[in-house]
């Protein structure tokens, strides 16, 4: 073991500066040195984690303040151009789309903003029926190419879980496998079939046994 002993001179110097490391106010070189020390030193690693928890708690103390009117709309306008554009658009169509986006961004006030920010049509959430310990839920949001979100919690999940969707017509769609820990995990997938055609979802372990399932019928 190369672990530094608590009476080590390097350890003494490091522990004095751990708070600055946790607070992110340390200059580059010293920061690297300290991080290297923490890799070797269990005591410093533990204290660094505690100091970081202290900082996390302090950040929550700042009171919430509503941002100026139109803030959400401006953020959404800044985010929207980053979304993937459809291929095979002519230059002119692209210009028109950009113009439309600008108008949309500029016009998102009052009722328009309320509409833009209103939650979309109800998505479906189904609790997973788990064979064994643990719990989870499945969310399907969107209609034509819906987003599937699977969230597993607690229990004793295997390292890898595959997902099998069954459509009303009996078609099976395999997804995954996804990395999950014993405490659970979350993953999502964009589906190529409409939400209305889904019948159920099953979660399957590496050995093929069914771990859980949920109904997805509308």
């Amino acid at each position: 073991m190369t672990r530094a002993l608590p009476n080590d001179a390097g350890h003494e110097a490091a522990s004095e500066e751990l708070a600055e490391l946790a607070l992110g106010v340390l200059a580059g070189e010293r920061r690297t040195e300290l991080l290297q020390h923490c890799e070797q030193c269990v005591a410093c690693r533990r204290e660094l984690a505690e100091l970081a928890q202290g900082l996390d708690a302090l950040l929550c103390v700042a009171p919430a303040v509503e941002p100026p009117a139109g803030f959400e709309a401006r953020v959404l306008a800044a985010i929207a151009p980053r979304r993937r554009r459809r291929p095979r658009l002519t230059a002119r169509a692209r210009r028109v789309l950009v113009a439309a986006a600008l108008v949309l961004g500029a016009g998102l006030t009052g009722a328009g903003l309320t509409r833009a920010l209103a939650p979309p049509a109800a998505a479906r959430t189904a609790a997973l029926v788990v064979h064994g310990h643990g719990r989870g839920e499945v969310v399907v949001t969107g209609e034509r190419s819906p987003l599937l979100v699977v969230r597993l919690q607690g229990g004793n999940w295997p390292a890898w879980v595959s997902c099998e969707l069954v459509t009303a017509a009996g078609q099976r769609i395999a997804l995954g496998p996804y990395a999950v820990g014993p405490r659970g995990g979350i993953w999502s997938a964009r589906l190529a079939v409409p939400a209305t055609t889904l019948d159920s979802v099953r979660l399957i372990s590496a050995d093929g046994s069914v771990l859980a399932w949920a109904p997805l019928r509308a």
Partner: protein
Amino acid sequence: MNWTVRRASLPGGLPDEALLAAMAHGDADAGAAFVRRYAARVYGLALKVVGDPGLAEDVSQETFVRCWRHAAVYDPRRGPATTWVLTIARNLAIDTLRLQRPIPFDPALLVELWAPAAGPAPEDEAVGRDALAEVRVALGSLSPAQRRALLRATFGGQSAAEIAEAEAIPVGTAKTRIRAGLLKVRAALAERERP
């Protein structure tokens, strides 16, 4: 078999991790819900650091742009989304503050963070409402000098050397004050969690 199918108005009702997972897939509705959920927390924190409404708004907007861009790398096992988004906001705010120098950061303006009369705290996943009160009590129980040092480092992004200069104290003293203050806040939380 006994199962339930719930209907929820989503994605506003989704847990943070699911919103971020959806954002990672380019779901703008999830992005809008996420912005609505955290706008006031992010803006409030940015305002505390930079002290200027216009700059705070710029910082807040960039925070959400980064959340959107990096949603795929958020790992719920490493901590709640609240901590993730507030940490991004703090880092951006401190970077902005550094660019604004020599505008001095004034820890006296942060008195409401720990004073008992502080406004209602939002419900929080990372630190519950009661825990937040404990953190305030812990902040209030620090000596004024210790508290100033901790607030300078936390919300002003000042290093021990900068705090030493501003407070006319030795650097070693500044280091000790930050560390002791942060550990005291952490201890107040740990004390609470003990059954």
